[in-house]
């Protein structure tokens, strides 16, 4: 009987423990599951790096938010994902996140290209079990909302570059146009120009920024 080794990284210990209990209690057809937990970014990183020298994990479950908002630490689970991809390319990476917005998900797909993405509100016994089974069978696994976000994005012909994507994202965060420029490292006028282009692209006529954001959301860019 094979044992599938899983690493769950989540700053909330209880969540990680929850995964552990659920998965270890689940009954799989031809393998057992062993879950290790790491409750911080650093611990997760150490475990991943250690696993490289010993036996790499089969699946690494990563939370994106690994620091409390007050800590202002910019590092996220994405960074860990990148580390995992570099250090242990054979380990499957699955993000377990409460973020379900297109931007974040697509961003993750661009940088890490994970083997699965689960939106936390959709996680339960069944989905966790299915996820493990699917991943073990070398197939990607996405929960429903994650999948819809990816699909929306893929169904459109519009191609926008990373700068545009960032501008849209910041706008959706309620940041003023004039404050966006320093965030994306370009001039104010550039931001304005790109905004105009985006409006034309999304066919937003006479609309304000809110209309643009709404349109971007329905088209899967946010």
């Amino acid at each position, binding site marked *: 009987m094979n044992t599938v080794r899983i690493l769950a990284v989540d700053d909330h210990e209880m969540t990680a423990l929850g995964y552990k209990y659920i998965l270890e*209690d689940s009954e799989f057809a031809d393998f057992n599951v062993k879950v290790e937990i790491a409750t911080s970014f650093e611990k997760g990183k150490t475990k991943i790096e250690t696993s490289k020298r010993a036996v790499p994990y089969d699946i690494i479950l990563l939370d994106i938010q690994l620091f409390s908002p007050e800590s202002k630490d910019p590092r996220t689970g994405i960074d860990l994902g990148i580390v995992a991809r570099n250090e242990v390319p054979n380990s499957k990476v699955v993000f377990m996140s409460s973020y379900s917005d297109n931007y974040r998900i697509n961003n993750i797909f661009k940088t890490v290209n994970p083997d699965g993405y689960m939106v936390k509100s959709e996680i339960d016994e069944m989905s966790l079990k299915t996820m493990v089974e699917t991943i073990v069978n070398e197939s990607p696994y996405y929960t429903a909302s994650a999948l819809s976000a990816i699909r929306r994005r893929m169904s459109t012909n519009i191609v926008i570059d990373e700068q545009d994507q960032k501008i849209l994202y910041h706008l959706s965060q309620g940041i003023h146009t004039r404050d966006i420029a320093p965030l994306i490292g370009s001039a104010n006028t550039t931001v304005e120009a790109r905004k105009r282009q985006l409006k034309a692209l999304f066919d937003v006529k006479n609309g304000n920024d809110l209309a643009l954001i709404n349109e971007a959301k329905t088209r899967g860019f946010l």
Partner: protein
Amino acid sequence: MNKYNISILVLIIICTSCIRTKSSSETSTATFENDSISIWVTESQKPNTSQEEKLKLQLKAFDFADNLSNDSLKANKFSSLSYSQNFITDSSLFRKINNRAISTNKKINDSSALGNAYWDLGYFLKKKFVKDSAFYYYSEALEIFDDIGDTSNSGEMYLHMASIQMEIKDYTASEANTIKAIENFKITNNNVRLYRCYNLLGILLEDISEFEKSLSYYNEALYYLRKSENIQFGEASIINNIGIVYRNSKQYTKAIENFEKVINTSNLFVKNPSLYAKALSNLATTKLYNKDTFGIHSLFTKSIDIKQKENDIASLASSYYSLSEYNIYKKDSISALNNAIKALDLSLESNNNERLLVTYILLANLDKEKAPYYFQKYTKLNDSLQREDRKQQNKFARIRFETDEFIAENIELESEKEILSKQKQIWIGIATGFFLLGLSIYIIINQRAKNQKLRFDQQQQANNQEIFNLMLTQKQKVDEVKRLEQKRISEELHDGVLGKMLGARMILTGLNKRTTDEAIHEKSKALGSLQEIENEIRSISHELSHSAYQNINNFTDSVETLLANNKNVNIKTIFHFNEDENWDSLAGDIKINVYRIIQETFQNAIKHSKCTYFEVTFYRNDDQFNVIMSDNGIGYNINKGKKGIGIRNITSRINKLNGTFHIDSSEGQGTTISLNIPINIDIKKNTNNNT
């Protein structure tokens, strides 16, 4: 020498023609009188009417006219009676009638009729040889006709005056008046009258031996005479006159030619034997002077015959005088003397002084014994005549002078009036000028004041705009903070609460089937976590609620920013206000103007007071908003010097808010300004500064 005869003849012609023209012009009035007067007039004209009966009729007419009640009718009647000199033969009656005519016409202001009445009087006096009075009335009439612009009649008056002046030998004046008459007649284009004028001029110039001019005037007279329709024997008489001129200028042949022309005029002998006789006599005299004595005597006798028949005494005298000259030429001294004496008698009878003078000389030459007597007579007569003439001339000059003076006076009055009216105009002009000047000054000042007010309002508006922007920025800042806070709460919910809840759910799910001690422990931990989440949510909820109820005062924030932005680090600023009050609920006007006043005062404090401390205090009750601003600077004497622009601005702003303010300051004691602004009463509507 015979010229006097001729002159007289001409004068008679003038007078008759004058009567003629006048009667023709007034026939209408005459025929108009269908009443008794015209009947009496015609009755009196009948040849068989005796002198007494005529007088009776005249008196009847006078009484009739005098009893008329209507003024204008009365005037009319008297005028016509006065004019009918043929009817009124009694001089005193005429004077009476004429007097009435003048007075009644004066009464009804009929200038034309009045002029005619004067004319009648002048004519009457002239007939009675009262030349000076005649001249005077003519001049009166002239004045009236001139006044009413009756050119034709005023010309007539000039002509009458000229003839009188000629008679008294005032040739220059006569000539001048004749020329005036000509000017008038040329306007009215009256050929007959022009003829008379030129004729008179001819006579005048002949008298002063200007023969050539005289001839040309006669020719002119002929020209007009021929142009006029009723020539009659005027042409013959002028030719006769021309002949006399030639004779006097010793051109005897030409003279004879003219006289013969006169004599040969058809019908003259029958129609005008007197002129015919004169022409005969003149021809004879001329022939005598030309030493052509053939047939002269018969000419003289023929002439004398006719003249005797016509009873033309004056002319007869001249004929006898010429005959006497002829007798002398023939050396028949006795006949000469006889004829000369006859001439003398006739001259005396006809009152012809000129003839008398020459006859005296002739007699003195003829009658050697009586020569001294005749010379003495001559001298006496000549002297008296000259004296008389001079006297007359003087008199006339006086009359003319008076008239001139009157005219001059009129002119003077006129010019005075003109000056007065000019002065009036000038005054009106000046007054208008001043009025306009005043008006324009008023308008300019008014406009300037308006502009100033407009500028002030604009400035105010700009200020208000500025503060509006200021408060807007403040609001934006607040909104930003709010937004950040919302974001923070959202993140807290997402990452904190959501994560924890997920954890609890996971544990409880995972350990659902386990009943081990460890599992039970973990479960209770998860439950504890849920409790934690409860508390966390409560606290977030509290925060939200707090931020919702927290007053965010743009107004006070603005004031705070204003005070905090002062560049002078040495000045400490303090702002007291009750945070529980809703300061933003104050009317926009109050907020803006108070903000401006604080700004102004603060600037002044920084600039002038050398203070180290500036304090602003707000407090309000239900209907009053009070602001106290104080500094610890050098202060100033509020009673000294005029109000600065700062104080004036404060006054203007406070007035706008219907508030009051008070400044408390003295040198070295700092300055305190307190504002007292009513809240509830309506703000003046003339401001549109609502933010």
